[in-house]
C-alpha cells in the first residue's frame, strides 16, 4: 500500500512540474549551404523569444531534399511544417494549392522592402507563397592580376566577344591556367542553368508562344557552338563533369582566369580561408550579345508552409523571424555583415556597413535587377523563369537536354546532333504532357 501511495505521489509531482504551455514542434526541411547552417545555429534566439515553439531541423542535399519534399507534399504526408524551396517550385506548387499563402507575417515585416524581382518570383496572383531567405543571380568573377598582366581591362558590362577574346588570351595551358571555367555537368540545375541563361543573351528561347520547342532555331545553334568552341579553346580539361563545386575549387586554386556562376560564390572566392586568390578577384555583369539581355539567372531559396501542416501559425512566426530585417541584423552582430544572407531586401543594399565589407554587393544587386523571370529573353515566351521554365515537366526535359549538351562539350557528340536530339526529346515530352499536338 505504501509503495502504491509513493508511486502515485511521485507521478503527481512529475505531472505538476510539466510545462504549462503546450509545445509546438516545427520540423523544418532545408538545404546544406552556409546561410542555412548559420540560421540553424541561431535558432536558439528564436526559441528564446517563443518558448512555446521548438524546432527540429532536417538538412539534406539539394536534390535529395527536392525529391523528399515533393513526395511528402504530393501525398500530403505532413512530415514538414516549413520547407526550403527554390523559385522554380513556388509558382508550380502555389498553382496546385500545395502551399499556404503567407498573409500573417506581421505588421513590421515590410514586404515592400523585398527586392521586386525576387518578390515577383515567389508570388502568385498577387499573394506571397514563400518568403525569400537568400537570393542570387550570376556574374563574371575574374582574376584582376591576370587581366592586368595581359593588359586587359574588364568592362562593367562585358560582351561575349570580349569574354571570348580575353579567355583565349589568358589561357596558359603549360602553367595550368585556363581562360574560362563554366559549368559542363549535365542537369537542369547544372549546365542547363548556365546555358539557358546564356541562350537568353543570344535571343534563344526554350519554347515559342505555342509551346513549340525551339532548339532547331539559329539562336540555339549560336549559343551552343559559341559555348563548345570557347570551352575547347580556353576551358579546363574534363569540363563536361564540372559543376559549381568543381569550378569553385579550380578558381580558388588559381586555375581559372574567369568564372561565370552564382553571385553567392563571390563570398567564397574572396574569403582568404577558402581561396588562394582572395585578394585578386574582380566582378562584372554576365556577358551580353548586344540584344538587351545578359547571360545571368535569378534564383532564391525560400521558406514556405506546406498545405498539410497543422502548425501554420507557429510556422509563419518562424518564417517571419528568419526572413526579417532583424534577422539580418542578428547575423551581422554575431558573425559580421559579410555573412548576412544576400539578395532579398532593398534595405541591405542601402546599408553602408554592408557595402563596406561586400565589394560584390553592387554587382549582385545589378545582376538580380537585370534578370526578369516574366520576360527572360528577347522574344516572348509562355513560361516564367530565367534559367528554367516553371512547368513540372522541366526537371526531366532540362536534364535530358543537359545530357545532350554535355556530350557535345565532351566531344562524344556534335553541336548539330546534340541540338537535334534535344529538339526531338523535348518535342516528345511536350506532346506526352499535352502542351502540343
Amino acid at each position, binding site marked *: 500500500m505504501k509503495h502504491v501511495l509513493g508511486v502515485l505521489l511521485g507521478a503527481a509531482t512529475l505531472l505538476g512540474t510539466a510545462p504549462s504551455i503546450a509545445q509546438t514542434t516545427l520540423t523544418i526541411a532545408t538545404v546544406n549551404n552556409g546561410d542555412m547552417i548559420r540560421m540553424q545555429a541561431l535558432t536558439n534566439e528564436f526559441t528564446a523569444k517563443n518558448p512555446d515553439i521548438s524546432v527540429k531541423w*532536417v538538412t539534406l542535399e539539394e536534390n535529395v531534399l527536392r525529391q523528399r519534399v515533393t513526395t511528402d507534399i504530393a501525398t500530403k504526408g505532413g512530415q514538414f511544417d516549413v520547407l526550403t524551396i527554390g523559385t522554380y517550385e513556388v509558382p508550380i506548387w502555389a498553382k496546385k494549392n500545395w502551399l499556404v499563402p503567407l498573409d500573417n507575417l506581421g505588421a513590421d515585416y515590410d514586404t515592400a522592402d523585398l527586392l521586386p524581382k525576387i518578390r515577383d518570383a515567389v508570388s502568385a496572383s498577387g499573394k506571397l507563397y514563400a518568403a525569400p531567405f537568400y537570393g542570387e543571380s550570376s556574374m563574371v568573377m575574374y582574376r584582376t592580376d591576370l587581366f592586368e598582366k595581359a593588359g586587359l581591362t574588364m568592362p562593367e558590362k562585358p560582351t561575349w566577344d570580349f569574354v571570348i577574346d580575353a579567355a583565349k588570351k589568358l589561357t596558359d595551358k603549360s602553367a595550368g591556367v585556363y581562360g574560362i571555367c563554366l559549368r559542363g555537368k549535365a542537369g537542369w540545375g547544372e549546365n542547363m542553368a548556365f546555358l539557358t541563361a546564356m541562350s537568353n543573351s543570344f535571343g534563344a528561347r526554350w519554347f515559342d508562344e505555342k509551346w513549340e520547342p525551339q532548339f532547331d532555331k539559329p539562336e540555339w545553334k549560336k549559343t551552343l557552338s559559341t559555348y563548345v568552341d570557347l570551352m575547347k579553346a580556353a576551358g579546363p580539361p574534363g569540363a563536361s563533369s564540372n559543376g559549381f563545386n568543381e569550378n569553385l575549387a579550380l578558381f580558388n586554386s588559381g586555375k581559372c582566369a574567369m568564372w561565370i556562376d552564382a553571385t*553567392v560564390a563571390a563570398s567564397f572566392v574572396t574569403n582568404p*580561408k577558402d581561396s588562394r586568390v582572395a585578394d585578386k578577384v574582380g566582378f562584372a555583369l554576365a556577358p551580353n550579345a548586344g540584344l538587351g539581355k545578359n547571360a545571368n539567372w535569378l534564383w532564391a531559396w525560400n521558406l514556405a508552409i506546406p498545405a498539410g501542416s497543422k502548425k501554420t501559425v507557429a510556422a509563419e512566426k518562424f518564417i517571419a523571424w528568419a526572413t526579417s530585417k532583424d534577422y539580418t541584423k542578428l547575423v551581422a552582430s554575431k558573425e559580421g555583415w559579410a555573412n548576412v544572407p544576400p539578395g532579398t531586401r532593398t534595405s541591405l543594399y542601402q546599408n553602408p556597413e554592408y557595402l563596406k565589407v561586400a565589394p560584390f554587393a553592387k554587382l549582385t544587386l545589378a545582376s538580380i535587377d537585370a534578370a526578369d523571370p516574366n520576360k527572360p529573353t528577347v522574344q516572348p515566351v509562355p513560361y516564367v523563369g530565367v534559367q528554367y521554365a516553371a512547368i513540372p515537366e522541366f526537371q526531366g526535359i532540362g536534364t535530358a537536354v543537359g545530357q545532350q549538351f554535355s556530350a557535345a562539350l565532351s566531344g562524344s557528340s556534335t553541336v548539330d546532333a546534340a541540338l537535334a536530339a534535344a529538339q526531338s526529346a523535348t518535342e516528345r515530352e511536350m506532346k506526352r504532357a499535352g502542351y502540343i499536338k
Partner: protein
Amino acid sequence: MARRVTARRIWVSTAAAWLFGFLIFLPILWMVLTSFKTELEAFSMPPKFLLFHWTTENYVTVQERSDYLHHAVNSLLIAGGSTLIAMIIAIPAAWSMAFAPTQRTKDILLWMLSTKMMPSVGVLVPIYLIFRDFGLLDRRAGLVMILCLGNLPIVIWMLFTYFKEIPKDILEAARMDGATIGRELVYVLTPMAVPGLASTLLLNFILAWNEAFWTLNLSTSDAAPLTVFIASYSSPEGLFWAKLSAASTLAIAPIIILGWFTQRQLVRGLTFGAVK
C-alpha cells in the same frame, strides 16, 4: 599431376593481390585523409597525400552541428532489427525449400528475387501512402519493416544455397533418432550452417546499414539513421568536402570495425561449399 608453383609466381601474385587490395581501399583511405584536412587543402591541386596540416576541426564541426549518437543508435536499431527479423523468417523458409522442395520451389525462389528487379523509386509513392496511413513515417518500426522486406529475398537465397550444401543424410539420421522438425532445425541444421548463417547475418546487416533510398525517404528526424546524417553534409553549392568526409568516416566506422572483427566468419561463409 599437381602444378608446380614457383617462388616468383607467388611473389607476383602476392604483390598483385596487395596492389588490388590497395586500389579497392584507396577511396576509403582518401576519405579518411580528407576528413583531417582543411576545406582549402581538401581540393588542392596536386593533391596532398600525407604532408598537410592535420586538423580535427571537421570532426568538431560535425559534432556541433549534428547529433551523431542519435543517428548511430537509429542505424544500429534499424539494421539490427531488420536483420534479426529477416533471419527469423528466412531460416525456416530456406530450410523448407532446401530439404522439402516441391515442383514450384524454383519458381518461388525466382519470384522472390524478381521483387528486387524493380528500382525502389517505382514503388515510392504507394509505400509512402501506406506508411502515412499507418503512421509509420519517421518511425524506426517502419524502417525495420521495409528494410527487412527489401533484404529478405537475398537472405533466403543465400541461406538456401548454404543449406543445399548440407548432406540430407545427416538430417535423415536425426529424424531416425526421433528429432522433431524444430529440434532438427535448432540442434542439427543451425550448428552445421553456422558459417553460412554468420556471413548472411553480417552481409544483411551491412546492406541494411548502408541502405540509403528508403531510409532517406521515409525518415525525417526521430528515426533518421546515419545515411541522413551523411546527406546533410553534401551540397552542390559550397565546399563541404572535408566535413562530408568527416561525417562519412564517422558513419562507416562502426561497420568497418564490425567487418574487421568478423572477417574470418565472413570469408569462411562466402566460400562455404566452394570446395568439397
